[in-house]
């Protein structure tokens, strides 16, 4: 078991996600930065999709009641064991009674804390991921807090001192470029609206969490039309459709919202484009006041980026297994 002394601002149990229920309105949840999440599990000898802790902006303080092997990846959130700084992206042996804590965030936004054996909370609809909006999964469907006890699963023997080399760790830039596959409803934008979306410098607002990231910076205008039957009256409304994870909607044409893993699965807003799956990791590591640019790419470039990312993960797998 792991005893939680402090939860951190928002730390949840996440695994690879809850799939197969999207059509019923159940979003996948799961680790937002999938690459760092998988690397954390590989470091401690877990299956890649095992449940970990996702800490946002600030880390928890955790006391281990049993010996454990752990690794912290993702954001540059300096970690300490019994007050002594330890490296990230490295497997570490922690003895029963030792305390893991964190300093102030240096870069990125989300850190992944993997423990050999995984965080052994109950599986709900096929996943241990926390979906806080509906209070399911994770630990009682919520962020962890002081006094909680986190069960740890049976671990395979795992070695300490294994590390992911620097070149395979994500850059955590202050300014991000997100590649976007335009559609499903970008036909609703005027040429000027499309230009504004792709050429404005956008800033992440404080309304940014696992549900979605809201941006401010430009203004988007829509082609005038008589709204069709079934669509709402605002020009940013369409007849209801399914929202891809990563899709960007613009209620009222003012503030684009990129929908993430805990978002609503469908509705009646224009989706002007979808952030490619690889770059959702970069969204997860961006934060309020961060600068963002959107760049339109075709599906070929999106798939090439996915293949390149698979090659990087394969390099980690080969080095660690």
């Amino acid at each position, binding site marked *: 078991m792991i005893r939680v002394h402090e939860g951190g601002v928002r730390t949840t149990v996440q695994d690879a996600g809850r799939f197969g229920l999207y059509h019923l309105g159940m979003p996948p949840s799961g680790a937002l930065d999938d690459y760092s999440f998988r690397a954390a599990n590989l470091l401690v000898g877990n299956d890649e999709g095992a449940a970990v802790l996702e800490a946002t902006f600030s880390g928890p303080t955790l006391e281990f009641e049993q010996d454990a092997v752990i690794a912290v990846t993702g954001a540059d959130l300096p970690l300490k064991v019994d007050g002594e700084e330890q490296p990230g992206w490295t497997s570490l042996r922690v003895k029963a009674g030792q305390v893991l804590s964190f300093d*102030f965030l240096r870069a990125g936004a989300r850190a992944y804390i993997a423990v050999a054996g995984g965080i052994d909370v109950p599986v709900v609809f096929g996943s241990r991921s926390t979906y806080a909006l509906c209070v399911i999964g994770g630990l009682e469907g919520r962020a962890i807090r002081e006094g909680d006890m986190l069960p740890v699963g049976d671990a395979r023997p795992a070695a300490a001192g294994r590390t992911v080399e620097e070149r395979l760790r994500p850059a955590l830039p202050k300014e991000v470029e997100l590649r976007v596959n335009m559609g499903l409803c970008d036909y609703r934008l005027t040429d000027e609206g499309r230009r504004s979306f792709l050429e404005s410098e956008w800033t992440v607002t404080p309304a*940014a969490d696992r549900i979605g990231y809201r941006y401010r910076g430009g203004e988007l205008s829509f082609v005038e039309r008589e709204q069709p039957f079934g669509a709402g009256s605002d020009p940013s409304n369409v007849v209801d459709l399914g929202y891809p994870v990563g899709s960007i909607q613009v209620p009222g044409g003012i503030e684009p919202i990129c929908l993430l893993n805990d978002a609503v699965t469908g509705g009646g807003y224009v989706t002007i484009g979808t952030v490619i799956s690889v770059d959702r990791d970069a969204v997860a590591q961006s934060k309020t*006041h961060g600068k963002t640019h959107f760049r339109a790419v075709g599906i070929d470039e999106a798939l090439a980026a996915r293949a390149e990312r698979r090659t990087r993960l394969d390099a980690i797998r080969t080095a660690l297994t």
Partner: protein
Amino acid sequence: MAERTVRSPLPGTFYRRPKPDADPFVNEGDTVATGDVIGLVEVMKTFYELKADQDGVADRFLIEDAGAVEAGDDVLVLRD
């Protein structure tokens, strides 16, 4: 002697007032005790209270009202 400061553990938007038309939590020159709320940090659709972690007198704020703050930023300088 190094200045004593209250730092923000979170990135976000810093507010000195509980709401726009209210008085600031703390004015420069006020006495501050450990645990006193000195402002709010807005992030993830939530307002988190920023509390003093030491006693002192509020000397000056380094982040303006509604200004951007990074995790670890000094927000308020305290003097004896």
